[in-house]
Every structure is written in structure tokens, then in C-alpha cells.
């Protein structure tokens, strides 16, 4: 996420008031920005990776506000294609522009060099053995919890779970470690015994599935690896078939997990109707990659990570579709004509969830568009609900405020709400435009 200070400055810069020259090529976008110094700052942003930047300003914050502003201008398609000046050519032929990004899986730095397939296979085998040993320990731990009784878990504290989670990190199973660390949060709810037993059962199933990895269908095996926490290189993803479509960024949700800022952006193909999730993660003090934004449409390819029930995808090149401006900048009628599906009812969503769980039994989020009427609680403090045309209701996840904006948009009639459904509750993320003139909005509480 762009920090508050950077965002404000970047917004001002985006207006182009302080740019001396701007241009872009296939490799990069560049500009000279008049800052507080006598000479303008030379700013360059890589075309395919907006997080790769160069700026001559003295800011210690990278990417600096000038680079963020320039990337924003480039993403909006407001910079004309011109020949690269010499100073830009010098920059883009040096590191980090010539360097693959850390998550690409390409060799970098001191380890750069030709990949030895046999050595890679040996490393993969060693890792699998390490994970298997860790998961065997996990099964013993799970059995111990059930043998001695779950009643002691709420009093056991975070340390009880942190110890086994740390062991899973050592065993290179970070996905399992994250599930274990999330467990104590469930122990404060009223129905914690059932929830805790479900969580332990899910981990038991995962450990068993890993034991039988070679016998599973290939896509399900990828899903098991993904849930355990095996890394997947971007090169592996790029080698998979691409789904070319106009991908509309519907909504984004930011979370902080173990000091890592994470943003999920949900996209849906306008032609295919397929869901995709673009994930970006930033360490403390760094901004999240703002390349994909809610409201914008990207005419490009999505390459999905391997695994059944997998929504995560690479969206490349993430350039906004020039024919489809952001949903917030056009009339509701125009958006409805170009970006509308109609919402589902809860019965349909139930079968979508069944499909997802059949593909990925550990899945926790189903992206949905529900056509429903928001129903305020009869008494203050009660749960808000969405009611579909059949009279079925689903509770809404409580947010920082009450979802009155949904009532305002709905007017007692169904509206299309995009959200994440976990099988129990719906987290509303966006209201989609419809033929009744409702406008696209991501303000869900007020």
C-alpha cells in the first residue's frame, strides 16, 4: 500500500505540474521532476515491473514519491512513447533494471549461473523429506492434543502454538506454520471447541495428503504443496497457459500478517467470467505494489498458479485497457453496459463453494457476486445480513462501521455485492453497477 505521505505527494505529482519531461518506451517510463533541489530529479520506472525504479532524489524511501507518481502516470497511459534519452538508456541497462525480480525464481546475484537440473532435483527431494519429517511430527502433536483434550488449549496461550509453528518453519512448511499461528484467535469465540477441532482436522488432512503426494492428481498435489508452503517460481507460472481477457479489478483488501503487508486484488474476466486474485506482499516500511487497482480494467493475460481451486494469478503486462476507463470515472450506464454479470443467489453460491472445496478442501475464501438486500439487525449490535431473492440470508463480516452505504445503494431492493464468502459469513468488498443506475463503490461501511 502506498503510504499516506507518499500517496498525497504522488497525487500532486500525477497532475504533471512538476514534471519537466516525460516519456516511455518498451523498457521503461521516465521523467525529470522538479523537486526542492536546483536540478530536476531523474526518475525511471521499469515498464514491466513498476516496483523497479531509479530516482536521483535524496529520499531514503524506495520507491520514492517521484517514482510512484511516474508509475501512476504510466499506468494511466498518459505518457507518450518516445525514443529513450541517453541518460535513461544508461539506467535501464544497469541493475536493478536488468535483474530479475526476487520472486521470479531466476538466479540472481552471487548464485547466478546455469541451473543444474540434477542439483535442483536433489534440493527438491531434500526439501520434501524435510517437510515430510516435520509433518510427521505435526501429526504426533495433533494426536497429543486430541488425546489430552482440547479443553486446555485456551489456557495454553500463544506459546503452545508458536512452538510447533516454529518447528514447521524449520521443516520448511510455512503454510502449516501460518495455520497453527492463526489457531489461538479462534479460541476466543463462543463456538471455539468445534472451530478448533475443525482446524486440527484440516491440518491432519493436509499432513495425510502430503504423505500420499505421488498418488494425488497433479493439480491437487500442487494444491497440497501450496497449502504446505512450497514456493512456486514465477517462471513456473509463466510457463502455464495464459488466459487472455479484459480483467476488471473489482476490489482489494489489505491485511497485515506477521508484520508483512498483504493486498489481495480480486479481478474477473469480462469475457470468461473467471475469477483471478492478484497478491502483493511488502515487508515493514515498504509500500505495496500499486500496479493493479480496483475499478480499473486490464486487457492482458492472466497466468494462474498451479493447483486445483487456485485463484492466484500473474497479471502481465498490467496496463489499463484504454477502451475501458476506471469504473468510477464513467457513468453508471456505461459501466453497466461493459462490466456487468448479474448477481448469484445463495443456493448458487453454495454450489460454487462445493466445487471449490472439492478442488481445494483447505480453501477459505470464495469470491462471489451475491444479489441481495442488506438487512440491518433488529437490535443494535446484532449481525447485518444479506438476503437473496429466495429469502435465504448470509451474515456479513463485521467491519469498522455498519454497512449503511449498502442500504443507501440498495433502497430495499437487491444489489450486486462482490465479496469473499467463507461458508459462514460474507465479507462485502464492492457494490457493482447494475441496470438500476447503482454506481460502483468500494465504500462498504460508514
Amino acid at each position: 500500500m502506498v503510504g499516506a505521505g507518499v500517496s498525497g505527494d504522488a497525487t500532486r505529482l500525477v497532475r504533471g505540474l512538476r514534471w519537466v519531461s516525460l516519456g516511455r518506451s518498451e523498457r521503461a517510463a521516465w521523467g525529470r521532476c522538479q523537486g526542492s533541489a536546483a536540478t530536476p530529479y531523474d526518475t525511471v520506472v521499469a515498464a514491466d515491473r513498476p516496483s523497479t525504479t531509479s530516482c536521483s532524489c535524496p529520499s531514503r524511501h524506495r520507491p520514492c514519491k517521484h517514482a510512484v507518481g511516474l508509475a501512476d502516470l504510466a499506468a494511466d497511459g498518459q505518457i507518450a512513447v518516445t525514443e529513450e534519452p541517453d541518460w535513461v538508456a544508461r539506467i535501464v541497462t544497469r541493475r536493478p533494471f536488468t535483474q530479475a525480480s526476487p520472486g521470479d525464481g531466476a538466479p540472481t546475484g552471487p548464485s547466478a549461473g546455469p541451473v543444474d537440473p540434477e542439483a535442483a532435483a536433489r534440493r527438491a527431494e531434500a526439501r520434501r523429506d524435510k517437510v515430510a519429517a516435520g509433518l510427521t511430527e505435526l501429526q504426533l502433536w495433533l494426536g497429543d492434543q486430541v488425546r489430552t483434550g482440547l479443553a486446555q488449549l485456551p489456557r495454553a496461550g500463544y506459546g503452545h502454538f508458536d512452538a510447533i509453528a516454529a518447528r514447521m518453519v524449520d521443516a520448511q512448511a510455512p503454510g502449516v506454520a501460518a495455520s497453527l499461528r492463526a489457531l489461538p484467535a479462534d479460541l476466543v469465540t463462543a463456538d471455539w471447541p468445534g472451530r478448533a477441532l475443525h482446524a486440527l482436522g484440516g491440518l491432519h488432512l493436509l499432513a495425510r495428503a502430503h504423505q500420499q503426494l505421488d498418488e494425488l492428481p497433479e493439480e491437487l498435489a500442487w494444491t497440497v504443496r501450496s497449502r504446505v508452503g512450497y514456493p512456486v517460481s514465477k517462471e513456473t507460472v509463466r510457463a502455464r497457459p495464459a488466459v487472455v481477457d479484459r480483467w476488471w479489478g473489482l476490489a482489494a483488501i489489505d491485511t497485515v500478517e506477521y508484520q508483512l503487508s498483504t493486498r489481495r486484488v480480486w479481478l474477473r474476466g469480462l469475457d470468461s467470467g473467471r475469477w483471478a486474485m492478484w497478491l502483493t506482499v511488502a515487508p515493514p516500511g515498504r509500500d505495496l505494489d500499486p500496479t493493479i487497482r480496483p475499478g480499473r480494467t486490464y486487457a492482458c493475460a492472466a497466468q494462474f498458479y498451479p493447483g486445483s481451486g487456485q485463484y492466484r494469478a500473474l497479471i502481465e503486462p498490467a496496463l489499463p485497457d484504454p477502451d475501458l476507463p476506471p469504473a468510477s470515472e464513467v457513468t453508471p450506464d456505461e459501466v453497466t453496459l461493459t462490466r456487468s454479470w448479474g448477481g448469484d443467489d445463495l443456493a448458487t453460491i453454495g454450489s460454487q463453494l462445493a466445487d471449490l472445496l472439492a478442488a481445494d478442501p483447505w480453501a477459505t475464501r470464495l469470491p462471489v457476486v451475491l444479489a441481495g438486500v442488506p438487512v440491518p439487525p433488529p437490535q443494535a449490535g446484532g449481525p447485518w445480513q444479506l438476503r437473496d431473492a429466495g429469502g435465504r440470508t448470509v451474515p456479513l463480516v463485521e467491519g469498522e462501521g455498519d454497512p449503511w452505504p449498502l442500504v443507501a445503494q440498495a433502497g430495499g431492493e437487491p444489489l450486486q455485492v462482490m465479496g469473499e464468502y467463507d461458508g459462514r459469513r460474507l465479507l462485502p468488498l464492492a457494490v457493482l453497477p447494475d441496470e438500476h443506475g447503482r454506481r460502483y463503490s468500494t465504500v462498504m461501511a460508514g
Partner: protein
Amino acid sequence: MTTPAQWAELVTTALLGTDRRPLEAADAPGQVLRQAARHRVLDRLAAPSMIEDPDPAAPPVGAPIQAGRPAPEPADRLLDQLLRTPDPALVSCWLSVCADRGCVVSALHWTALARLAARSTGYDRSALGAALGPRGRWFLQQNPEWRRLAADAQAPVAPPGPPDRPSAPVLTADDVLADPERLLAHPQPWGPDLVSAAYAVLGGEGLVPPSRTFASRLGIALPTELYPSIARAGEFYVLAPDASPARRRTIRDRFVTLELAAYARAAIHHAFTDSSTSITRAEIPHV
């Protein structure tokens, strides 16, 4: 398939522990975990929320059809900006102009407007009700916390047209200097002597100092054609030779507030019309 009773039994076993509540199985903990894994998936597919509630909370009764056309896009954007740092006088001005033009405010702003107006009586609730339209007033009625606001917003708004003015008492410049609030209560048009007296109050020549919000309210009430006079008056009073620096700063602050409010009011009117004319920003001299 696990019945609710079987699941409850399983949870009880897990809570107490299979050491204390043994099962007839070789691997009792493993059996509990396997059943839990299966139930975890089935439970989510048969979530209670998905089952029709025999006694559901009643959904809101359908809202009436909205009357009036939506506020123009520039006006909508301007309201969005005003709501970021809301000033009751300016927001009320926007609402009044919106209602006078026969427009209604977008549903995207209803919640923010309702929350602000429910907390402060500084907002013109009649104008809010008129700008919300029948659908927006229905919205106010849905939240019990906004009941008072909804009642105030239902109050009828005077129809547009020449007001039926009773003969207003004559107001003189001396009256304004003695009590500047009387000017704001006096019907327009104001004579030049009254406006000059109001400027004199801001310039510190009134018999009583102006209230904290007087400059802002005067700016909103001031006719647009008098906007250029603000800069001239500001220059006259701010650069008065006999004033101390502190006094000049105070006077300048008042005229800056006056100018800002008058400019915002002009911008609000501008946003509701297709007119391409715009006013040049007046500048109050620095101390």
C-alpha cells in the same frame, strides 16, 4: 454423514481427550481428527446461514422512487471534497443549491451526510432532506439513531420562487457595527453600506468582535458579484498603517476565511450550472 448429535459427541470427546473418554478404535485420536476433517468441509457446505430462517429479521420495506435528477458530476465531486474536511456552512450551502436546482445527492454520500448531520445542528437539515429526495429520506428512517434527523429532514422546504417577504425592519450600517449577526438575518439584497459595515467588523472596527464563524457565514451569504470586493476590503484593513502585526494577522485570517467561503460558494454554484465562466481567485495581502 455426521449428525449434529454425533458431532456434539465428537467435540465433547476431543474436549475431554480420548485418554479420559476412550473410543472403540485402535487409533482414537486419528479417528477423531479424520471425522473432524470430513465434518469441516460438510459443515461449511451446510452452513446454518444458508438455511432459510423461519423467523428472519424483516428486510427494509422498499424505498420510494427517487424524485429529481442526480446532481451533476462536477457538483458530486465537489461534495466529495467538501465531505473530506466538512464545514457545516459549506456543506449546507451545497445542499441548498442542490435542492434549489431540483437535483438530488448521490446515494454514495448519504451515509456520510447522515452521520455528520446527526451529530451537529450546524447542518441545514431541511436542505438535507430536500437534497436527499424521498429515497434518501427513507434511508434516514432506517437507522434508529437518525430518527430525530429524519424527522427534521421531513420538514417541508419553501418552494423556489420569490419569497413572500414581510416588510423587514430597516437595518443601518451602525446596526451592523453594533451587532453583525443582524446582517445575516436581514433579507438580501444588502446595500453597499451594509456590506461595507460587515467588512469593517472583520477589519476590527465593529463595536463588538465578530463571532468565530461570522466570516465563513458572511462569505457564503455574500452575493457572487461582490466577490472581487473582498480583496479590496482585505487590502484596506490588513495594510492599515496604524495596526499592530498581531492585529493585522487576525484581520487577515478573517478575510482569508471570508474569501475561502465566498469562493467555495461560487464554486458550488458553478458546479451546478453548465456555465464555463469562472472567477479569478482573490488574494488577500500577506502581513
